[in-house]
């Protein structure tokens, strides 16, 4: 169970409704996405209840929580895969209920999903541009697609042998990199990343964190899910904590230290401690 530091929770909640705009890079930040008491039920499963959050331009919101806490469900509502069935969802202050991810994309919301990633039988470059194919006359600019896909992946430190390779034959990390590279390439205003670094090597994960920072600096809003406190703390501006489908509060970076964050994520058990325990037989 996640143990919430007493007092902090309520304080953060007061401070966070609505969240004070984080001023960054000189521009005044605008809230792009906001949810108010949002909820989602699958049949008899209450996956998400009463979650409020917001992301402003130039801000990184980290969503943290145990397995099954509802992080991916929240993401999927934000990006139009699921329709919420309680609460309100606002984009640019306007209430919306996306019928399809296309509508979210058209609003400039690009997403890397945890489990809805790729078409295994399709080649890397076809996957990369899927849904946003570059045109050339009536057709699809294949040469450009190949070139851009290769370049973007190389920039991430993934050196694909052959962009014609079916995605299904890539390694787990390579596949994830393709999804991230695509979202970064097409992300216009908001970038949503659901555990993007989970299958990545240390180097590639570093590249992704740098991408997030760069997107933030370009004024995009970023929603970033991770289980790794070492990844969350360096880039996050605000931290939304979910537990068993409900929000445990939203924290600003200044309200919380890296140690506290780790403690929150680990439910009190420290990795350092664990290390000791593991050595003893």
């Amino acid at each position, binding site marked *: 169970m996640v143990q919430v530091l007493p007092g902090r929770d309520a304080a953060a909640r007061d401070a966070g409704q609505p969240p004070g705009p984080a001023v960054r890079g000189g521009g005044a930040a605008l809230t792009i996405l906001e949810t108010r008491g949002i909820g989602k039920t699958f049949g008899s499963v209450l996956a998400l209840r009463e979650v409020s959050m917001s992301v402003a331009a130039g801000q990184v919101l980290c969503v943290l929580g145990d397995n099954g806490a509802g992080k991916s469900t929240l993401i999927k509502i934000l*990006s139009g*895969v699921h329709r919420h069935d309680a609460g309100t969802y606002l984009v640019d202050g306007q209430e919306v209920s996306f019928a*399809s*991810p*296309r509508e979210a*994309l*058209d609003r400039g919301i690009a*997403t890397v*999903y945890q489990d*809805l*990633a*790729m*078409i*295994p*039988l*399709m080649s890397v470059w*076809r996957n990369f*541009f*899927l*849904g*946003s*194919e570059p*045109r050339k006359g*009536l*057709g*699809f600019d*294949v040469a450009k697609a190949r070139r851009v896909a290769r370049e973007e992946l190389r920039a991430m430190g993934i*050196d694909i*042998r*052959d962009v014609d390779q079916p995605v299904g*034959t890539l390694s787990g990390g390579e596949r994830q990199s393709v999804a991230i590279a*695509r979202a970064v390439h097409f992300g216009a205003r908001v970038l949503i990343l659901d555990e993007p670094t989970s299958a990545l090597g240390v180097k590639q994960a570093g590249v992704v964190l740098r991408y997030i920072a760069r997107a933030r600096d370009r004024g995009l809003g970023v929603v970033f899910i991770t289980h790794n406190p070492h990844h969350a703390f360096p880039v996050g501006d605000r931290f939304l904590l979910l537990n068993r489908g409900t929000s445990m509060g939203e924290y600003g970076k200044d309200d919380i230290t890296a140690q506290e964050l780790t403690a929150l994520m680990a439910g009190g058990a420290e990795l350092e401690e664990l290390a000791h325990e593991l050595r003893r037989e």
Partner: protein
Amino acid sequence: MTVAADERVARVGLARRLLIRPELGAVVGLVVVFVFFAAQSPVFRSPDGIANWLDPAATLGIMAVAVALLMIGGEFDLSAGVLTGTSGLILVTLATRFGLNVWLAMLVGLVVALAVGLANGLVVTRTRLPSFIVTLGTFLMLQGVNLGVTKAITGTVQVSGLRRAEGFEVANAVFAGTIDVGGTSFRVAIVWWIAVTAVATWVLMRSRAGNWIFAVGGNEQAARAVGVPAARTKIALFMTTAFAAWLVGSILALRYTSVQANIGIGQEFIYIIAAVIGGCLLTGGYGSAIGAAIGAVIFGMADKGIVFLGWDADWFKFFLGAMLLLATLANRLVRRYAEEVRH
């Protein structure tokens, strides 16, 4: 670092690389079947013989290509065969019983066919019932309509007499005529077939829609998640199949100038078979238009070749089955050699 210089890529011969393409596997099946029959029957390999077995391969091929697109998009259309009959019946009935110009009658047929395709697509995408069951419903219903309406209008199970209709001559020449190539007359349907295959190949390989077709067949949810208009893509595919059915139905009606109410029943599976022989996966997301066209030729050759060889008609189906199995097996073995364990 160029790709060719990557030390993780083994050098692979051109032949192997070519054979990986789905359609080139089918080519091997084609060659095997052709050589088998050509070696034994001089008529089979004569220009006249070729014109003969290419003729049904052409109409089958037009349908197989459209059905292959639909299968790549992850759906089936069992109503496609009967819809050829519906289109033909509309054409002949309107032209002979209601005195419409042939071209106008064809237009009406096209509208009806597209409406059926649209209905199939809408029901499949809205209800999320499997297309197998939805188009099975359409298949049965169209069968009933074909027979019921034809009987109601003509009192018999067929309509005929298109030859006397206005505009017949030109339409016949365009859709059902023949062209002379070196003294042998080939059916003009072959040209239509090549055109359909070429357009379908372009769409699949070089258009945005092609990318969407592969994607909705490979993983519809993932495709939707990146913004592919999955429902529209599928509806368009059903309408494409309906269009092909109209084309083939019109070609056959103009050629025979009469249509029976039960025409096309059972053909839907032959279309699927041709697409599968040509390398389409039944599960969607993989295949090619050229492959399906070649699959149609393989089927057509095996189908007619047995007659050319004069084998006992009672055993016809046996030989046909064996031949198809061998052609697909040859295709598969070649592809496996080309890709080895890749799956």
